[in-house]
């Protein structure tokens, strides 16, 4: 579903490599967890996958469509939830969902059904007619989630989606992620909550200092060390990467 080939992104005229020559393939039907320390390059990678940033080198395809050269078709396959919740404050929640439905060309029957379903799932039925600027952080997160799901994209890209969600909404999201993949779709998400990643991800990629230091199933990452948690694996790998640099 996602194919990242030799992608690099630098800032400050190349002196800071936010993402350093990473290659990654995310298959159809899997929940892929993307984890790493703060400043590792997770959000930069996600922004390149979604077309917000342009890589310096390499290519990224979504369902076979290049995000740079065939951007409209590539983006049509994505439902994206960023880590920040900067939305159109002057629209109501419902108007924002309608706007997204219009630009994704969602048929009326589908948008009605999905809007009602997800507003109920995330408990926003009573607030959907309020202006977004009156929403709490968590409510903005929910509206962003709903707008990413309403058009039923084959690929969900979620950047720290659990942040700000109440436990009920968090549980509902995890269930929905699983159900989405069971239907043959794909979820790519980044998180700092390693227990969640360990529990629900089919495969995990660990990025540190712009480099992809490990990719695989939780078993593959354990490398035979039974009972080791993802947290331990994470610390071991990131500290090893740090030590290697020193």
């Amino acid at each position, binding site marked *: 579903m996602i194919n990242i080939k030799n992608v690099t992104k630098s800032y*400050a*005229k190349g*002196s800071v490599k936010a993402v350093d020559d990473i290659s990654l393939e995310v298959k159809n039907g899997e929940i892929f967890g993307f984890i790493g320390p703060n400043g590792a390059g997770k959000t930069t990678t996600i922004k390149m996958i*979604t*077309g*917000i*940033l*342009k890589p310096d080198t390499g290519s990224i395809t979504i369902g076979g469509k290049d995000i*740079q050269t065939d*951007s*409209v*078709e*590539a*983006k*049509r396959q*994505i439902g*994206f939830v*960023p880590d*920040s919740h*900067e*939305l*159109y*404050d*002057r*629209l109501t929640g*419902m*108007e924002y*969902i*309608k*706007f*997204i*439905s*219009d*630009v*994704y*060309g*969602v*048929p*009326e029957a589908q*948008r*009605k059904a999905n*809007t*009602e379903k997800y*507003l109920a799932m995330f408990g926003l*039925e*009573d607030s*959907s*007619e*309020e*202006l977004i*600027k*009156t929403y709490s952080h968590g409510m903005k997160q929910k509206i962003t989630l709903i707008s990413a799901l309403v058009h039923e994209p084959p690929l969900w890209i979620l950047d720290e989606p659990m942040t700000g969600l109440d436990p009920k909404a968090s549980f509902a999201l995890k269930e929905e992620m699983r159900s989405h993949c069971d239907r043959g779709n794909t979820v790519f998400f980044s998180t700092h909550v390693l227990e969640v990643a360990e529990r629900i991800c089919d495969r995990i990629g660990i990025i540190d200092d712009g480099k992809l230091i490990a990719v695989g199933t939780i078993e593959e990452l354990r490398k035979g060390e039974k009972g080791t948690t993802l947290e331990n694996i994470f610390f071991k790998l990131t500290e090893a990467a740090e030590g290697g640099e020193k």
Partner: protein
Amino acid sequence: MNMFFTLLKTQLNNRFGLTAMRINAHSDKKAFRKQLGMSLVIIFSMIYLVAIYSFLAYKFFGLTLQANMPEIILVLTISASMIVTLLTGLIFILGSLFFAKDSEFLATLPVKPSVVFASKFSQVYLNEIFVTLAFLLPPFIIYGVSLGMGALFYLKALLIILFVPAIPLLISALLSMVLMNLVSRTRRRDTIAVVGSIALLILYVFGQTYLMSQIPENGNAQALIGLLNSQSGLINFLGRAFPPSAWATLALVNDNINGLFPLVEFICLSLILLIVTIPLAGKIYYKGALSHLETAKKNKKRSAKESKGQNSPVMAIFFREWKTITRSPIYALNSLSGIFMALIIMVLPMFGGSMKSDPQMNALLSLITGEYTVTVLLAFAGMMVLFGGLNPAASTVLSREGTSFWISKVIPVSYRTQIIGKFLFGYSIGAITAFATAIGAIIGLKISMSITAGALLLALLTLVSITAASIIIDLARPRFNWNSETEAIKQNMNVLASMLASVIIIGIYVGATWLMQTLAFSWTIIVLVDVVISVASGAFLYSFMLKYGEKRFGVIEP
């Protein structure tokens, strides 16, 4: 006092990106050179404009000197400066003090509300000082040098420049605080704030018109001449639009004790207003500034309305832009007030007291409706284009997205389509303004329908170029990082650049028309050529906007 300076310093640093410039100077020289280059371009453009203005002021002064009324230049420029500050100050004050993003954060700090208010007010004040300096210094110097005024004149001039923005800004601040306090007690705050702000602006304009119209009703020429022959009579007469401007002028032109009293009056009024405003701000500022953070819980359980109707991506973007503009008091005030102002300016003669029976006004009106039909048509078209093109909606169409620009990057709508949606939006505001001008011209100035229709058609064609040019400017350097909506519009150089572009485009028409007239072309040919220029330039700029926009959208990183 320390807290005030700490706040002011930090806010100015944040607003002008001073630390960012300092860091770039060491670590990102390309970005630093770009910032420096832009700053120098802006400075040189301002110097150029001030130079042209100074030349015109010098010529005008020469005429007034011949008529033995040199004080006219002082009273007119001081009046104009104070009136413009009063009108634009309202927008600045509302945006910087009441709709800034950092209001919530500042409210959590252990700082008095009056100090927060004072620091924000000072930012607006400092901004106005620079504008006042550019506006008043040339005529003051021209007057002082030509008449051999002494050091005292220049000292008083400096004091007056420092204090000129005070009265209008403090009036705006007081009225804004009252307005926002009232707004905070209502439920539909944004709607009331939008309507209230526009109403206040219209009130200012009508207030000025009323003051300006208070000339002797019986038209007694002898009485009028007597009034104008005395220096103070002339100054008071011309300064009636904003009386403190008369005090400032009298202070400047009189070297003796007669100049001291008006200066004291002028400064004292400024200080009295300040003394009244700051403590009041301490009591009511936060209520107005933070009211937008309060949400009214609806008692009735409501289910989501059905999402009716499906819009194309172009129309979805078009409607989104309109909703954003009309629901933000600052955007509405800046972008939509022009529609009302254009209408009001056209119908003002109907309300201007003795202007209605003014023989010179009547002569002008009969001229407009008389034989110079084509000239009037072209002049009106120019006026409609000017009113329609001066609004900042198109030149901030990307900048206003701010930190939510990421949405435009991820939605599956081609950049070309998005630009078309934004173009339609910007054009629609210009077109509505042109229509409002046309309606006002028919009602207020009794211009014939045929002339108005012809002028409107030409204006609508020309607005294509102006809207496209404005969007191109914002595509070239969008400004996404702003703390308040006012910064997105008022402190966005794209708006100024777009106004200059509008003036240049109008200048091309004026130049072409003048040239053709000089070459004795018939008026029919002149109008036809103007239409052809409109269509050709519109097509070219629109096409360029799309091509350039597609490239720029791809590389702009939010």
